[in-house]
Each structure stands twice: as structure tokens, then as C-alpha cells.
């Protein structure tokens, strides 16, 4: 029912693609991260809250938003979206045709973060799952335990007069952090890329704690002892130096492994992820009771082999999702920036447009706005 083509996951009966990486006529989008939602397709179908994010990132286009569990028929194929728990608007795509059901997970996490909707386990015959953290060493602590660790760290920095700079993806992790930080009652400054998303999401009715956009004219003392959230691309940039003295804390599932904290030269690493951990993946896969599992982006070979040994028929599939993560560039943001250069022009135009409509002050240029990752 779904084929793996060089443009992406294709459903011939319904004549649509799911998260295509080349321009197509009709694209069903799981979520707004740039490796899943790419520009150039004619018509997009996605969750209602993903629509304004696509407008922001891809510019004007034909975006149709639906609610979760609200079926749409494409050439007689029943398509519905269901919470994936990854970021705001993120959805699993359920495709039903002639009694067969496939579910494409997109990216997902099984813990309810209180913001992205609770992951909805769906029964199906075929399940296409991600595997970003598909190794048993990835075993997350509860969100609350990680949050309290982050708050302790911020308090400690404040005591020594340092600003806490938290590195987090601008779409997803940054919004979760706002809720983590709210009980501290500190000022939260954010990078332009995060401010833009904040405006779009609050404009769409998502309730988020307030933020202050960092602007070039702000005096350095404003930040002292407070919190700054910045995307990975800002690490080591001139932009970030203005917060001296500061300590850097990176929020990413990769921080589970000490080597990654040291390689990034961070003062602290918090293993806060928007993906399922090993147990989460296994739990989600078992819940589908699928007869066949296709494993995409991440540790696909490892997870597929393990599933087969456990008696669950699985195969690995090569896609262009999460390529950055797998290539390690997830952890080294400059390269992500380079690869996104082509995309940047349109993104900035779009960001400018969004700012104009909401009356916000636009960031000063591409360099400053650059650099949110895509997981």
C-alpha cells in the first residue's frame, strides 16, 4: 500500500506522499521539522497546528490543516492523523485502504510532555517507525526529574553570577524548556529563531510562558543571572559571547553519553529528548501488534535486527529523514547551518513576513536567525 521511493514514502492508491524529500503534487506532513517538511510540493496536508509552522518555514503555500482523528479521503484512501507526542502538531499518519492499515510514525516520543499531545498507540498491520535513539543505552529519566536538574543548574549559575545559556532546538525543545523554567520566575531571553516560533505558536492558540527576544541593543547586564535559550547553531558564535559570564547547558538526547557533553565543550548536558528511548520504541512497536515493521532513520539496522530476534518481522529502510542526526551533524551545528544555507533565504523572508503580521521586531539578519536543528 505504501512504497519506499526515491522521493519518499508513496501511496499509489491515494496518489500522495508522506514527508517527501523531493517536491511532489500532494504531501502529507507528520511535523514541521525541516527534514520531514520540505519546500516545493504543490499541496500539503498536516495537523492544524503544523500549518502556521509550515507557513513560517516554507513560505506561503497550499496548506490544509486537520484535527487529530479527523479522516480525510484521498482517492478513496482513508487518511487520518494521530498524536505522535514529538512536538506541537506532530502526528502519526494512519492510512487505511481495502481493510489494510499502515501507520507511519514520523518522529515520536512516548512520554507525554504536556505540550505536544500524548502519543496514541494505534493498531495496524504495518508500522513504519523511526529509530533515532534505538539503542538500549538510551533510557530517559522522567521529564520532571530532568526539569528539576535543569532548574538546580540554573539556580547554581545564578548564585555565581552567571547567565544560564540553554541550547535547545527552536521548535520543540525550546517550548518545553519554557514550562520547565516558569517556576523559577526568572527572565527568559530567546534567540530570534525561537522568538519567531513562539509568536507563531501563541498566535495559533498554544499557551506558552512569555519570552524576551534578544536584540542587539540590549545592554549586557540585562542578562546577568537570567536564562537564555538559543538554538544549536548559536553555540560558539559571536552572538552568544555577549552573555559573558555564562554557563552552557545542552538539552538533547545525545547528552545521555558523557563523550558528547565533552565533545560539545558544554558545562552541562541534559538528556532531554523529543524522541522515544529504547524502551519507548519497543513499547510503541509492540502496541501496534503489526505483522511487519519498517525501521527508518536512526539505528535502523540495530533495531530491525533486534526486533527480528524477538519474533517481530522487521526490515530497515533508508530515508532522508534525520540524516543530520545520523551523520553526527546533529551534534555539530555549524555543518547543519551550511547544509541549510540554500533553504535559509526563503526561511528568512518568511520569518520577516511573520514578524510583520505580528508586529514583532525582526532579527537583524540571516546569521543571527540561523541554526535551529531538525529534531
Amino acid at each position, binding site marked *: 500500500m505504501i512504497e519506499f521511493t526515491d522521493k519518499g514514502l508513496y501511496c499509489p492508491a491515494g496518489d500522495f506522499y508522506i514527508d517527501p524529500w523531493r517536491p511532489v503534487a500532494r504531501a502529507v506532513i507528520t511535523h514541521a521539522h525541516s527534514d520531514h517538511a520540505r519546500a516545493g510540493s504543490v499541496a500539503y496536508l498536516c495537523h492544524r497546528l503544523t500549518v502556521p509552522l509550515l507557513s513560517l518555514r516554507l513560505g506561503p503555500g497550499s496548506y490544509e490543516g486537520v484535527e487529530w482523528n479527523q479522516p480525510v479521503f484521498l482517492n478513496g484512501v482513508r487518511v487520518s492523523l494521530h498524536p505522535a507526542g514529538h512536538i506541537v502538531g506532530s502526528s502519526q499518519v494512519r492510512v487505511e485502504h481495502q481493510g489494510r492499515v499502515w501507520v507511519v510514525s514520523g518522529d515520536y516520543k512516548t512520554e507525554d510532555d504536556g505540550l505536544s499531545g500524548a502519543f496514541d498507540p494505534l493498531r495496524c498491520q504495518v508500522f513504519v517507525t523511526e529509530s533515532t535513539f534505538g539503542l538500549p543505552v538510551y533510557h530517559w529519566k522522567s521529564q520532571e526529574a530532568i526539569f528539576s536538574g535543569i532548574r538546580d543548574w540554573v539556580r547554581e549559575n545564578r548564585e555565581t553570577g552567571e547567565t544560564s545559556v540553554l541550547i535547545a532546538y527552536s521548535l520543540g525543545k525550546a517550548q518545553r524548556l519554557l514550562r520547565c523554567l516558569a517556576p523559577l520566575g526568572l527572565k527568559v531571553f530567546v534567540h530570534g529563531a525561537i522568538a519567531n516560533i513562539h509568536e507563531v505558536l501563541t498566535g495559533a492558540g498554544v499557551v506558552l510562558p512569555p519570552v524576551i527576544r534578544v536584540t542587539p541593543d540590549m545592554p549586557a547586564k540585562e542578562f546577568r543571572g537570567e536564562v537564555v535559550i538559543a538554538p544549536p547553531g548559536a553555540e560558539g558564535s559571536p552572538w552568544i559571547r555577549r552573555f559573558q559570564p555564562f554557563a552552557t547547558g545542552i538539552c538533547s538526547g545525545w547528552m545521555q553519553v558523557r563523550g558528547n557533553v565533552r565533545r560539545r565543550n558544554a558545562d552541562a548536558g541534559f538528556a532531554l529528548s523529543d524522541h522515544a528511548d529504547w524502551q519507548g520504541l519497543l513499547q510503541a512497536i509492540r502496541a501496534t501488534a503489526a505483522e511487519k515493521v519498517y525501521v527508518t532513520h536512526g539505528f535502523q539496522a540495530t533495531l530491525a535486527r533486534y526486533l527480528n530476534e524477538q519474533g517481530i518481522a522487521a526490515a530497515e529502510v533508508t530515508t532522508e529523514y534525520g540524516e543530520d542526526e545520523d551523520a553526527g*551533524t546533529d551534534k555539530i551545528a555549524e555543518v547543519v547551518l551550511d547544509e541549510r544555507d540554500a533553504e535559509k533565504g526563503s526561511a528568512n523572508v518568511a520569518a520577516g513576513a511573520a514578524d510583520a503580521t505580528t508586529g514583532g521586531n525582526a532579527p537583524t539578519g540571516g546569521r543571527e536567525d540561523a541554526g535551529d536543528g531538525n529534531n
Partner: protein
Amino acid sequence: METIERSGTTDGQVPGQGGMRRFAELAVRLGTSTKTNDRLLLLERYFLAAADTDKVWVIALFSGRRPKRTVNTNLLWEWCRELTRLPAWLFGECYHTVGDLAETIALLLPDGAASDGRGESLSYYLEALADLAKADETSKKRFIQQCWMEMNNEERFVFNKLITGGFRIGVSQQTVVNALARATGADVAVVAHRISGDWDPGTVSYSDLVSGEGGGAELSRPYPFYLAYALEGDLSELGKPEEWQAEWKWDGIRGELIRRGEALFVWSRGEELMTGKFPEYQELRERLAPGTVLDGEIIGLGRRPAVTAGRTGAEAYGGSAGGDTAQPPFVVLPFAALQTRIGRKNVTKRHLDEVPVGFIAYDLLEYGGEDWRDRPLEERRRQLEAVIRSSEHPLLQLSPVLAFDDWNALAAIRISAREVGSEGLMLKRKSSPYQVGRKRGDWWKWKIDPLVIDAVMVYAQKGHGRRSNLYTDYTFAIRDGDQLLTFTKAYSGLTDKELAEVDAFVRRNSLEKFGPVRTVKPELVFEIAFEGIAASNRHKSGVALRFPRINRWRRDKTSAEIDTIDDLKKMLELYGK
């Protein structure tokens, strides 16, 4: 102290603080801290707060004194697999991603007891581990698995590190010394001297250690080494040439020769007592007066043929004030030769004949039982020359002082360094005292430019520690006719950004997979730099390189333009002796 206490108690957790937990937190925070000053502060607070018995162990661990390994690593792996029920291949995948066995096990173990464990001290665990030496496998397993299940993730990691050894967390001994000095109010040099040398953390008490009542160990105690920085900037910035003493920089092992009481000891720079490894040094016991400590190079020495035949060593030094000082009256063997000696448990007659190890002395730290380190180098040198001259032994040589009138002349001498088997020059201020640790200003090393060769990458493997999960360890090949011949591995030398690019290339261009190793399309060309070259029958290429590393990425070259085995052989002929 408060910060450490509090940081252990995240909201909602019980603030239990056993010694092991305190230590685990110290180790983990030291491991990720990015500033020397933070590390200093963490250690100082630890020394002010922890139990004395634990502090002694921390000083021992952080100054390279490892407890003996009493549990086999493979067993640890087995016992962890038994608890996790993971297939061996998956365990292997995890290990290759994490890059550290102790950490892999800590991450894989199922959640421990919800309680705060038994709150035992660091010394409790270390003593228990030492006792395991005599235990059978069943008791070892019971103890280790029980400890794991009582610990949190950080404690498990540190505990595993204690078992497997190799506790490297980026804290220099100097930082430990500084922190101890601050915590105890003692002088830095005094502390450094006290914690160096041969002492057993199992028997020494903290107060004995920091107040220096050490007993018999006193006799063998070395002085901390003074280490040079690499010369940066222009020579002329050093001031007048006549204020400086220049010597060859020898490529051996930095060592201290201690003659006290009835004994003679040899220490390496790693604070390791190596007396047993070099039995030939015992001959020097008769030739040196008690109360003499020499700083110098442990190095393989051959006899100088022809030119100096007929002259004794002493005569050769006699003219050191003038004449051809650039030619030392001895021949040094390449480092590779010395290496064949170091690794051996038993040194046989054959080893002694093939690689006689000598000592090239360049400083005098103690004379007549008196600490000479505060005297100016000039004065120490004069006395050193007298000491060596009167010793009259071919294995004890004086590092020649190189005569030069101006900086240009010195630069010219440096070019010929490789010909005498040295790796460059040392510059020492004649008026300087002998300091402690790595200090800027009075001692500089000025190494020769490395040898370089262009090669293509053929294998890649994921790195360890800081570089786990990235392909950062590469094997290189040169051209041998129309074949590629692997000849060296090389690490580092690339920026993080370049590493990420190469990593992405490896992932896209893997040809085959052998466990953790990938063969890759031979396409990326790198300039490999190395310090020396020697013939080797253990390497397919017939050569062994000294300290090979990636100098730069030759994006301008294709694999058709790399160097050949003939280029390498030429270098071997010229510099490989």
C-alpha cells in the same frame, strides 16, 4: 561545600550523601567542567568536606596511582549482560557507540533500588575491590552485581572505572596539587613534593601525606618535574642570546635519577618508579655520591664509532665550552628501540646488549643531600658537569650545551637536530630556578618540523570518550605500484567541523563493515605528520612511525596524487638509522 551538597539534591530527591556518591559527583563534574578554575574549586571543596580516608584515595587516583585490577573486564561484561538479558552483539553495538566500557555498563544496567543505597565510602569500595583479589568468581560476581544494584548511574560509572582502571578525567596533577595547597594552606611546591613518590593509599593517612611524615618512602621521593612549554612567537622576544642555554631535546623518557642512602632509584615523568626496568643503572650507584638527584633523559645509547675513537667520554666533555659542541660524544637509539625495553617484565641479557639504556643528564636537583632547585641554572649546570665528569661511566652522559652567538645561528643548529637523533632544541634561562610543573617563561622547547607524507584514508573506526559515536580514528595507505598499502593509523589534528564532514563521508561511502571498522572508498587525502621513522617487521609496510597525526586535509589532492612506498623508504634511509 554548599554547592556540592546542594547539587546532589535535585528537587524531590533524598539528600543522602555517602562518600561514594560524593566522589562520583566530583568525578562526573570534573569530567564535564570546561574551566581549570572550576575544577580547582570542585577539588578544593571536596578536600575540605570529604572523609580523610577517601581524600587519600582521591589524591592517589588523580595522580595516576591505580588500584590493581582484581576483576576481569570480560566478566564485568558477562555479569552486566546477565542482568540486562541483551544479546552480545547488541551489547557490542552499545559499546562502540558509547566508547567506554564502564559507561556502557552503567547506562545499560536496569534501574537500581529506589533507595539511596548503603551510603558507603569510597575507601570502603576500594578496599572491598582489593580484597576481591583472593575471592573466587562467584563471590566476585555476587559483590559486583550487588553494588551495581545499590548505586545510581553516576556511582555505577565511577565504580566501574575504579574496577577497570584508566581513571582519566582531564585533571592534571598540578590542579590536584593546587587544590590541596589551597585546602590545607600549605605551599604548592611542598605539597607537590609530598604527594609525588612511592606511597600506598591503603596505609598512608591523610595527615601523614599532607604533613609529610612518610617514613622510608622519603628516601625514594622524587622532585616534581619542571616542564617546558612549546616556543611560540619569535626567538628575539626571548631577549639576549647570552642569557640562554641551548641543548638538544632528546626523544626518550623524562626521568629522575635519585641516589640516596644506600640506594639508587629511577622515576619517570609519569611518577612511576622504574628502577627495576633498567638494571644497568645500578652500576651508577657506586659512581654517584649519596644525596644526588639528576634530571635527564632515559634513552637507548649506542657507542659512537670512529670519530671519537680513542677519546674517553670525559675527554669529549672537556671541550664543551668551545669546539664542535653540536656533535654529542654518544649515539642515541630511536624511541622505538627503547619501547622494546619498557614493556618487558623481565629484562634479559640480550635486551641489555641490544638496547643498552643510558641517562643523559641535564639538571642537578639535589647535591650533597641539599635541595638545589632554587639556585640559578648556571650554578646547577657547573656542578652537574663536575658530577658527571667524576662519575666516568659510559651510560651516564651529559647533555651537551650548544654554543651559539645569535639567534640565527641557533636556528641553523636546530635544522640538524634529526641527524643527532634529537627532536629539536631546549632553551633554558641561565638565571632560572628549577620550578614545579609546566610554567611559562624560563624553559622552552623548540621542536623541529615534523616529517610529512600524503596518504589516503582507507579504514575508519568510531572514536572513544569525547569522540564516541563519530568516525574519528582512521587508517591510511600510500601507493605501492597500483596497490594501496596501509602504513599507519592517525588521530586528531582535524577541527570538529572537519571531523563531522569526514564522519559523514565515511557513513555515505562505507564499502564493508568489520565489527566497528568500516572500509571506505579511498578518496580523502590527508597530510600525515610524524616525528620519526624506524624499520619494523611487525608492520606490513615495513616501517613504524613515531607519533603520527593528521596535519591537514589535502582537499586539493586526489588519491592518484598521494605519496608512494618509495617516498617512505627514502625517509627511512635518511632518518631511520
